[in-house]
Every structure is written in structure tokens, then in C-alpha cells.
């Protein structure tokens, strides 16, 4: 963990009114998730593959005796797959499932920092022109003339979708 370098962004007008977010990189873009939804960040360990699941499911890892499914965000966002480096991390996030909270891991290329994003810097999600599925985007934040995508993590990792995709995958194999 100590080897992860925190890259500081230059921020104008830093205020403490907004919510705190974790900023991280997947492929070329910077994304953010509210820290309240993050349980911890761990170093990359190679997940165990789970056969017959969609490609974006990297597999499961052992998190202190429990199995945590890991989602490859680059794959989920249909972005170019990056090589595994020492900066590759797994963010352990809490997702509100249909019944109760679930723990899921997100494979990301680099974790940047935790910072406040002032409310005035947050803009609604665009309907068009985004590189990823707009359902995954909760808001956009403009910091220092750069756009950061605030993810709707519940949608990204929505369980129902995972299950449906899984079933589709299985059915397609049968044919």
C-alpha cells in the first residue's frame, strides 16, 4: 500500500462543504465514489476465476476468510484493459442490493486521493457523449477544468444485472 503514490491535483477554491470522494483511475479516465460507500482499499491479489461468469467478473478474492467477488471496471466500462502494475488496486465497496448491503471489489488501475468535492463543482450527468454507459454516471464534477465522473456504484454493480448477465452467459454456452 505504501507504494501507491498519491497524485495531488491542483485545486482551486477548496471548500469543506461537499461530500468526500475517493478518486481513482480506470484506463484513461478519472472516476470518483463517495467514501461512505468504501470499506477499504487493498493491494491487487490475483482473483480466483469463477467459471461460467461474464468477463467483467474477475473472480473472487479472500478477504479475511470471506469470498468477495471482484469486478473489473475497465471491462465493465468497455475500456482498454490496462496491465497489472504495482499501482493496481481493489476497492472494496458496499453496494445496496435488493435485500441488504453487499461487499464487492472493484479492480482499478490507480487510486489517487480522497478529497472533498464542493457541491457547486458537481454537474448533472450528460445524456450523451460519455465514454461509458450513462446509467453508471451519477454526476460529473469539474475540478481544475478537468472532468471527473462520479459513479453511481449501485448501478455499476447492480446485483440484478450481474445475475441476468450470468444467466444469459450460461444460456449462450448451451447452444
Amino acid at each position: 500500500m505504501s507504494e501507491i503514490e498519491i497524485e495531488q491535483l491542483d485545486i482551486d477554491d477548496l471548500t469543506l462543504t461537499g461530500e468526500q470522494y475517493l478518486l481513482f483511475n480506470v484506463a484513461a479516465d478519472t472516476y470518483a465514489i463517495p467514501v461512505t460507500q468504501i470499506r477499504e482499499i487493498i493491494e491487487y491479489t490475483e482473483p480466483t476465476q469463477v467459471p461460467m461468469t461474464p468477463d467483467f467478473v474477475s473472480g473472487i478474492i479472500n478477504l479475511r476468510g470471506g469470498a468477495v467477488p471482484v469486478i473489473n471496471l475497465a471491462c465493465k466500462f468497455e475500456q482498454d484493459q490496462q496491465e497489472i502494475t504495482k499501482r493496481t488496486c481493489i476497492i472494496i465497496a458496499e453496494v445496496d442490493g435488493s435485500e441488504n448491503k453487499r461487499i464487492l471489489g472493484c479492480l482499478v488501475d490507480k487510486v489517487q486521493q480522497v478529497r472533498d468535492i464542493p457541491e457547486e463543482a458537481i454537474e448533472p450527468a450528460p445524456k450523451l457523449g460519455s465514454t461509458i454507459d450513462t446509467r453508471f454516471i451519477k454526476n460529473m464534477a469539474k475540478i481544475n477544468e478537468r472532468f471527473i465522473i462520479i459513479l453511481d456504484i449501485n448501478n455499476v454493480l447492480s446485483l440484478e444485472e450481474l445475475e441476468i448477465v450470468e444467466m444469459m452467459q450460461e444460456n449462450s454456452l448451451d447452444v
Partner: protein
Amino acid sequence: MNSEMDENLSIFISEGNELLEDMESALLDLESNPNDSESMNRVFRAAHTIKGNAGLFGYDQIIDFTHIMESLLVEVRNGIVPITSDLVSLFMRSKDIITSMMDSLVGSGEVDQNDLDEATKLLEHYLADPHAAALAANPCDEDGSATQVETPTGIFTINLKLGTETFRQGFSIKAIFRELNELGVITSANLFMPDIPKLDEIDPESCHLSWLLLLESSCQKQAIADIFEFMDDCEFHILSPESKTEEYKKIISLLPNGEAVIGQILVTSGALTEKELQTALDRQKETGSRTGDILVEQGDVQPEVLESAIAKQQQTRAASSQSIEFLRVNASKLDTLINLVGELVINGERVSGLTENIDDDKLAEAVTEMNETLEEMRETALGLRIVPIDGVFKRFNRTVRDTSNELGKQINFEISGGETELDKTVAEKITDPLTHLIRNAIDHGIEKPSERELNNKPPEGHVALSAYHETGSIVIKVSDDGKGLNKEKISNKAIERGLIKQNDKLSDSEIYNLIFEPGFSTAEQVSNISGRGVGMDVVKRNIESLRGNINVESEEGIGTNVIIQLPLTLAIIDGFLICTENEDFVIPLDMVVECLRLTKEQTKEMEKHNYINLRGEVLPLIDLKKHFCLPKTLENEPETKNVIVVQHSGKKTGLLVDSLHGEVQTVIKPLGKIFQNLKGFSGFTILGSGNVSMIIDVSSLITDASEKQRDSFMNQPHGQNSNETISSESAEI
């Protein structure tokens, strides 16, 4: 405060439910054997404890109702009211009412007021007129029951010393005497005033009076003590009449072996009141002499009664040294403990891995010792959740009794293998499906007595419930000797419902398994017990959700067996570690029959057919890497391939893998909801290295593979050669 209350409530409820369950099984025992005093006592104890617990929380409804029930139970225990089937049914009904009262406390369900009123009335009827009720129930036994009703009258000696505060607390001597007069006749009253203070120190509001009273009455000792109950600083001793001595001795000898304290034995028998005991115990602390001696000295009990109580105490002590003590623990705490132990074991293995290269004998010794302890700890921890299935099985006695009474069928219900152990969660979830199967067996399986006699069968139907362990799973069997399943009827119904086609050729077991299809019922008449066809599919679904499977065997006219096979989840299983395409998988060792090594030529040969010749038998193969669609990680195919032969429901199947890594001990952990649709795996485990490995569920893997095989066979034109895992070769097998 609130949460504490909730916690207490939940303890009350869970303990209450346990007691009620015990009461029910005791009632059933009592019905078949009315002279069983131990069962009688179990019923009584359960009612009494529930009343006591309810009293602690002030649940008046439960207190009032159990009080009536308890009063009647006392009469029954003393042989005044005979035990009849009607009476047992009434107690059963009362038990159900108490259950619903407890449910209503936690907001689930409501108490049926009519039912409650009616049951109360019935209980009171028995109570008010035991003789008449007994006569009505058992008219021939007139003389026997009549003599037992007489309670002998005797003279109680009451030594009453009123406390100085008596008047200030608002008690009136007149009222005390009036109450005593209601119980019997005061034949003599001697007033003592031993410690009257000097005249100038007298406080007119203080009481310094003592009496020695002789009361002629047929009441119980406790009834007298109740009069003085609230007079805190009053000291009293009641010596029961000689005539009662025999009665107490008899009750003491009938007491269950459970209470080892002499005072408690006396209190339970009625020879001593709680308050007298408390006073005696207080004095014992001061003087140090024996409780029994103090009691006789104080004039609370006769020496003879004390002797029989001492004899009982010794008997009890001998018995209690054999009984096992139990502790009630919150299940989630256990789960946490088990998880923690699991983590500890994994970390322990990591530590031993890290220290392997350090040349230090003492360190190595310490690590080995630690690992041994950890291993033992893990086994013990995992064993904590394992319970015998007996607890589940016993509940069905009631189901059988009620169902058979309702249908007018005689059932001989037999339970075996109750000691078979399984995980508590599985045990809990299996209750509903089993209830359904048993009711089905009685309703559909067993014929009416008249019909049975025509078929040369004993009029009494036989239903058996058994459990045993088999190859890493637990097997539960529900069998009956009824009419069996009618294949023709099932086929016709299935054709009618469009489940199969007119000219489909089905094997017997395939036909029987049609009954698990949703909405399937061959019963011509829908009864309130079964026949709506909304059951067997639910049963099947429940079993499958436990990763088990269910099968039916039947022979027309002879009977039906329903066989449920369930995995022993969460148990430590011995696994066999295999590797294919750099992915590790664990196969439960119990499933493994043997391992084979194939040469490259054999492998090629095998790839054409998907089966090999194993000592003259056809061994179908599943290539795991193809079945699981694993990506290729190795440049070259390994020279030799390994086949691990597994056995499932009597059939052998080979799994083709890259390499074999031998035995490992594993703990099955569930995969979680996300992967619930994933077939072929029963869970995952964490290997010593800290890596996660999937555990292959052999039975569902084979089912899944054969389904895929069938689908691919149906979707592909015959003869087309395909590289798919499972191809048309199946037709040749």
C-alpha cells in the same frame, strides 16, 4: 433498556418454544403410556416454567391461561383426573394456544379469542368437576376414581409470629383469621406475647403478637402460606398434619430426578413453602447446620418427609452425574467464532510457510505446536454448529398424530437414525419439506384400514423416517407401506398437462419424478391436507436450494420411498485438490473413487469419444476446462492428462484435469447471492496459501453437463463433428 427488554423477550420466546415442544412430545408419550410419571412431570414442568417466566415479564394472558392448565395438570398428576385421548388433545390445543400467545408477543399472528375461550372453558370444566369428567371419559372406572378424590382432612399446626410492622403495613389480624376460617376450622388458638416491651417504650402501632394455631382443614400447605405471603416481616411455620405425611412421601417418590436441592424437593412436593425454605436457608448461613435439620427444628416438616426427600436427593445425584449440561448461545456469535477460527487457521498456515526457511528449532517447534492447537480448535468450532437430526424428527410425531386422526387412518410411525448429525441451518430448513412429505405419505400413500385389509396388509399403516450418512452427504428417507405410485396415472396426467408427449418413453424414475413438476397432482379429491399439487414442486425447490436432491422409488401396492440427499454444508470436508489451466478446484474426497493417468495417445482417443474404457466399463468423461470454458493459459497441452473418477448415485464419471495435487482439508463457505445461479459448485474454500478455490459439486456438475449435452445434441444436426465438450457421442453410450 428497550433493547434489553427485547433480548429478554427473545430469550423468553425461544425458551418457551423449546418447553412447548418438550411438552408436546411428553404429551404424545403420555397418550401411549398414561402411567408414565416422568412424561407427566415433563408436561407439568414445562407449563410451570412457562408460567413462571411469563410472570417475570408480566404477560398476564399467558399466566392466566397456563395457571388453569397447570391446576388441571396437578389434578391429573395426582390421579384425580384420568388421562384420556380427549384430555391429551385438550392439552395439545392449549399448547397451541400458548404458542400463538407467544407469537403474538413478537407481533406475528394473533390469538384466536374464541379458541382461547373455548379451551379455557373445557379446562375449567375438567377442573370444576373432575369426578364427572372422569366418569364421562371413563364410565367403567367408577370406584377407582371415586376413592382418589377424597383428600384427607388433618390438623395443621401453625406457629405465627407477626412482625412489628404488621399494623403499619395495613394488615388486620381479623382479616387473617377470617381467611384461615375460610380454609378450615380453627380448633385452638393460643396467644403469646413473648417480647412485649416496657410500658413506656410501647408504640401502639407496633405489633408484638404470636399465635399457636391448630387448623383443621383439607387444604394444601401452600394455601395457608399464601395468606401470609405479603406480610414481609412476619415469621410463620406450618406443620402439616400427620395424615399428609404419606401423601408427601408419595409425591416425593414420584418427582423427576432433576432437582438436587433438598429444600426444592420439599417445596415441589408441597410439604414446604418457598418462604419457609428461604427462612431456613438464611438461618443455615448463620448457624452452618444442615437445612433439613433446621426445617425439622423449626417445625416446618415432619422427620419422615425429610427422610424420603433425602433419599430422593441421593437418587437424583446419581442420575445427574450422567446428564450433560447445555448452554444457550446466540447462533450469530457462533458463526463469528467459526469465521475467526477460519482466519486464524489460514494465518497460521501462512506463518508456518514464512518460517519454513528460518533455521530455528525452537521457532519451528512453537509453530508446529500452534498449528496443532489451531487444527483442534477448528474442528471443535465447526462441531459447534452440528446438531443431531433428532430434534427435527421428533416434531413429526405430532404431525403424524394429527394427520392420521383427521383422516381416520391408523399409523405406526417409526423414526430411526435420529443421532445422525447435520448442520443446524440445514436442519431448520428441512422441517417444512419433511412435514409435507409425511403428510403426503399418510394422505396419499397409506390406504384406508378397510382397503388395507382387502389387500392383506395390516390395518395399521407404517410410515418411517430415517436418516444416515452416505458419501459426504446426509440421506433422509420417508417411506410408507401404502399403495405406491401409479405409473399409468402419472403418465396420463402428465400428458394431459402437456408435460410429456403421448409416445415419450420414460424410465420409471423419470415418471416418478414428474410428481415434482409444478401444479401436478393425481389426487382426484382435494383434501385440506394435500392434493392441491402445490407441494411437491415446493419441496423439490426447497431441497435444491440446500443444494440437495430428491428422488422417489415406488412399487405399486407395496409402498413409496422418498429419498432426500443433502450436503453437509459447513462441515469440514476432506477434499481432493486438482488443477486445470492453472486454476485450482477442490472435489469432495468422498466422491472420488480413483485417479487415472492418460497417455497422449489415450488423450487423443478420448477427445474423439468423450468416454474411455475403464476395465471393460464405459466411463463418460467431462473435460473440466471445456465445461467451465476456462481460457487457455498454457502454451502446450501437458504431456499426460489425469482423470479423476467420481461416483454419484451409483454411476461413475471421469473428470479430465491437468494435474492432481492430493488431499486437502477444507471448509465449505457459501458463494453468496451473486453466484447463486452458478451450477456445478457447492461453495469455495480458502487454501493454505490464502488463495480461494472453488469446490466442485459433483452431482450438480454432472446434471449440468448432461443437460448441456442433451441441449447441444438437440440443437445440432446429427453427425456433425464438433469440438464442443459434449458432442453427439452420447448417443453411442
